């Protein structure tokens, strides 16, 4: 593997070689307060996270359910802004040079910072990928090239309702991995059907060699393992953020809580490899 390849590509290549599945936690930066975020990121890695999706809080998270909406509100109370999130990534990089970090959120904070300034600062901080849920590939325009020049991979969403024509476009523009939204609805909703997800992923494999990771509806070891059997990775968001919310008044207990649930998922995902 090319030493200069993006951390995300390197990580997925290593996982593939080992026959393992990616465990991708999502946490909202600044929740419950900015001082804790870097510790939480390290706790995720200790529990076996392969990639970290770090949420950039936004005042109007219209694709998110109540759990992540409230996380954004808690983070924004402390004034957590995109520039602070980039500082957190830089601080994380002081102790972890390898775990890929993807910024996830909405477009407006990037739009307001300016794409060129954002790309430069994100690269300098050690960000590897960007997933703005309200920026489909058709709207990226010249920013796709700008991000690429700065070593930032553009991660896109795919949904059960995505037409084959759009899926082809998204697969063509996608980098790093594809985030398959397993359910209709906002984050944190309902339960998912691993079998149906499996058959949908099978048809996507004909369109792309990118790793297919599944988010929405993964809450414990059992759901992680079920999805791990059909996908290249699982993304867990609301289940983690919910635990952070429960412990918002005792943030010192949160790293251990994150280690427990992610550890359970890691173990469940790896059990299938050994079997």
């Amino acid at each position, binding site marked *: 593997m090319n030493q200069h390849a993006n951390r995300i590509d390197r990580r997925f290549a290593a996982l593939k070689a080992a026959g393992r599945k990616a465990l991708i936690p999502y946490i909202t930066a600044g929740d419950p307060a900015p001082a804790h975020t870097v510790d939480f990121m390290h706790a995720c890695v200790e529990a076996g996270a392969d990639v970290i999706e770090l949420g950039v809080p*936004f*005042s*109007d*998270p*219209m*694709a*998110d*359910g109540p759990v992540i*909406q409230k996380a954004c*509100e808690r983070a*924004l109370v402390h004034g957590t*802004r*995109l*520039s602070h999130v980039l500082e957190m990534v830089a601080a994380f990089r002081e102790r972890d040079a390898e775990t890929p970090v993807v910024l996830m959120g*909405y*477009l*407006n*904070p*990037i*739009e*307001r*910072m300016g794409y060129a300034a954002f790309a430069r600062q994100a690269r300098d901080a050690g960000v590897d990928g960007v997933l703005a*849920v*309200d*920026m*489909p590939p*058709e*709207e990226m325009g010249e920013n796709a090239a700008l991000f690429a020049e700065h070593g930032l991979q553009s991660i*896109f*969403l*795919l*949904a059960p*309702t*995505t*037409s084959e024509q*759009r899926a082809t476009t*998204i697969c063509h523009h996608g980098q790093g991995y594809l985030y398959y*939204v397993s359910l*209709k*609805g*906002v984050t944190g*909703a309902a339960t998912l059907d691993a079998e149906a997800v499996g058959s949908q992923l099978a048809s996507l494999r004909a369109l792309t060699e990118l790793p297919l990771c599944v988010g929405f509806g993964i809450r414990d070891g059992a759901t992680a393992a079920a999805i791990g059997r059909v996908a290249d990775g699982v993304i867990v968001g609301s289940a983690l953020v919910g635990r952070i919310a429960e412990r918002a008044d005792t943030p010192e207990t949160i790293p251990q809580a994150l280690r427990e649930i992610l550890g359970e998922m890691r173990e469940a995902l790896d059990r299938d490899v050994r079997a």
Partner: protein
Amino acid sequence: MSRFSDLTQLPDASGHFGPYGGRFVSETLSFALEELDKIYASLKHDPDFQAEFDRDLTHYVGRPSPLYHAERWSREIGGAQIWLKREDLNHTGAHKVNNTIGQALLAKRSGKPRVIAETGAGQHGVATATVAARLGLECEVYMGAEDVERQKLNVYRMRLLGAKVVPVESGSRTLKDAMNEALRDWVTNVDNTFYIIGTVAGPHPYPMLVRDFNAVAGREARRQSLEQIGRLPDALVACVGGGSNAMGLFYPFVEDEDVAMYGVEAGGDGLATGRHAAPLTANAPRGVLHGNRTYLMSDEGGQIADTHSVSAGLDYPGVGPEHALWKDVGRVEYVAADDHEVLAAFRELTRVEGIMPALESAHALAHAKKLAASLPQDKHIVVNLSGRGDKDIHTVAKIDGIEF
């Protein structure tokens, strides 16, 4: 040909008005928007669809709405002649019904049994609940909790019409939060739900189709001006929140270079205070919210700013993308009227002409008054009286210290 003819060709195929507009949505919604695009493209020039739309506008809405010469008010001001496009006389009391009639027909063609809407002042919610009642569609309306409080009358109207009104407690508890919640509903129930957006914002194709359905007011006003004034007016004035009534009035005049246009935003406590809802007038930076790129009030970190206006219907941090372009190319001049001027205009029109305007429409009246005073008596100004003020009696009474 006019130097503004290019403006009639927009949006482009991908839904952009120059640098504005577009379709900035989560992938989960792309399918529904593509589907809506196809349905509308197939019906836009379908004579049967247009005939059905026109029939409903005539016999259900009561169109055409009059163009009324406010002679006494014009005389008192002592300048240009003010004409009122009486959208307040439409069924349900505002221009909003033009669009909901159109979108309800699209919902019917799409076969979806449920409609949802966001609402600020409640006029769009009432107009949606009305067409839903008529077509037997299930209807849910999202409304900011603060607006539920200040627009109680419309909330009860919607409930009488059979709609479920959902108060939205998140964020600033106003129109933008109602739109967030409606989008969340749509993402979840996209299979059986049609989202009736109430303004010329949102992801493509909404800004285009809401404009097209509202443009009936401008077409009528243009024809009525030729008949009643004997020529086109010198200026058009309309209030702008998202901008649907202004777009409806302005669009058919866009190539008429000699017709000046003024879009009046909500100045709130005054632009200098920062407590307003006037992204165009205040030159807010470009941003992305609710599926489109436009002028958008946000802080330095890109968080959406809290807005303020005495009128719930204009209390929105963004504006339709076509207005954004029209500002840049200089086709429309955007100005703001503050709450104080608006309340004065509300009282003045009520007293002098016996017409009680919606507080939204009173923004247009406040600017029209200033404009008229600056022009000679042989000039003519058409103001979109986009809604009636019954719904605002509580708000005004409260300001007067009266409780019912």
